[in-house]
Structures are given as structure tokens and as C-alpha cells.
């Protein structure tokens, strides 16, 4: 029951499952990025978050990031899982795992992945504070419309 390397899920992410997906006898280094829900942002207290994705497109874009990584850093394997739905403080929103024969590539490719996720993957989060709510995107939306 091998899970997809790039997926959007609505239940808690098991970090180790994502790590397992990139394991290889050729791997000397695995880097993992875990994006968690932080309580304070600029001094403002978050109660909880809600993530929403344009799921089919998000999965496709995650896989594209995986292809980009494979061609930029040959020999690396990447896996990304992003969670949607309601998340509490300290819950894991996204896990990126990259394995590589050598560590430098594993760090570079991992950081590249999170930057690209924020640029091109249609996932938004809604912050719930005591005094209100706001939709905030993971995307930087560099693509301009019109």
C-alpha cells in the first residue's frame, strides 16, 4: 500500500510515512521540512486554522515540483504531503521529504520545494483569531492575471 509521493490529505500527516516514501539504498541524506501551526504571528494569537485546496490542481502542481527537483538535482527523490481542513496549534500542515546520496542537494531541493509550493500550489489557509478570521494563501501568486 504505497501512498502517492505527492498528495493532499484531510487527516493527520504521519511524518514517518512521508520519510519512508523517499528512502533508498542510495540515500545518504534525507531532509524533512515540517510546516506546523504556530500559535503567535506578529504577536497575534491564532486559535486554529482551516486549509482549503483546489485539490486536483494542487496534487498536479506538487508533482510538477517533484519533476523540477528531479531534473535540477539528479538522484534526489522528493515526496510532499499537504493537509487540508481544520488544524489546531502544533498540527502538521505540510511535510516535504527529500532523499539524496549527499546532503547538500537534499537541503537545497527541500528548501526549493517549500518556496515553489508557496508560489504555485493552490492552497489557502483561513486564520481564526479571537477577534476575527482571514483567508491567507500559501501562494505568492507571482502569476498575474490580465
Amino acid at each position, binding site marked *: 500500500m504505497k501512498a502517492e509521493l505527492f498528495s493532499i490529505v484531510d487527516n493527520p500527516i504521519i511524518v514517518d510515512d512521508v520519510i519512508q516514501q523517499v528512502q533508498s539504498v542510495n540515500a545518504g541524506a534525507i531532509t524533512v521540512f515540517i510546516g506546523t501551526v504556530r500559535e503567535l504571528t506578529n504577536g497575534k494569537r491564532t486559535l486554529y486554522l482551516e486549509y482549503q485546496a*483546489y485539490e486536483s490542481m494542487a496534487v498536479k502542481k506538487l508533482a510538477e515540483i517533484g519533476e523540477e527537483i528531479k531534473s535540477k538535482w539528479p538522484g534526489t527523490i522528493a515526496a510532499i504531503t499537504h493537509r487540508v481542513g481544520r488544524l489546531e496549534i502544533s498540527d502538521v500542515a505540510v511535510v516535504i521529504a527529500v532523499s539524496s546520496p549527499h546532503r547538500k542537494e537534499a537541503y537545497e531541493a527541500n528548501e526549493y520545494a517549500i518556496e515553489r509550493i508557496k508560489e504555485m500550489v493552490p492552497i489557502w489557509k483561513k486564520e481564526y483569531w479571537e477577534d476575527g478570521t482571514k483567508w491567507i494563501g500559501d501562494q505568492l501568486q507571482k502569476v498575474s492575471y490580465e
Partner: protein
Amino acid sequence: MIKILFFAGLQEEIDSDSLMMESAEATVQEVKRYVQSIYPNVDLQQVIAAVNEEFSNGDDIVKSGDIIAFLPPVSGG
């Protein structure tokens, strides 16, 4: 029929996650004007459109059976 999808804040403003447009073919900009005509108070200025899950430009053509998604503006990572 063109299927139009809305997400996040835009979905909440419109109070719906989709809308159908009776058209055999239209540019992305024409679809946008159509949505604006139905929801005049919604701000679509910053919205990005994706046609069949690919980012698109205003001139791109949307055909019957295509899905166009309106991805609302975001305020950083």
C-alpha cells in the same frame, strides 16, 4: 457549458463553490466579466484563473467542458 470554480475567500463571498456559464467558447476575461456581472460586488481584480488546472492569461480560450478556477488573492506565506 463552462464550469467555474471558486475558492477560499472568493468562495465565501459568493457563497458558492461553482457556477455554470452557458457558452461554447469564451476568453478567460469574458468568463471573468460574466462572473462580475452576476456578482457585481465581488472584487476580482487580484484573482488568478486556472483553466483545466493550469495557470492562464486573460486571452486564453475556455471551451465548453473546460473547468476554469478563480483563485483568490492571498496575503503572503
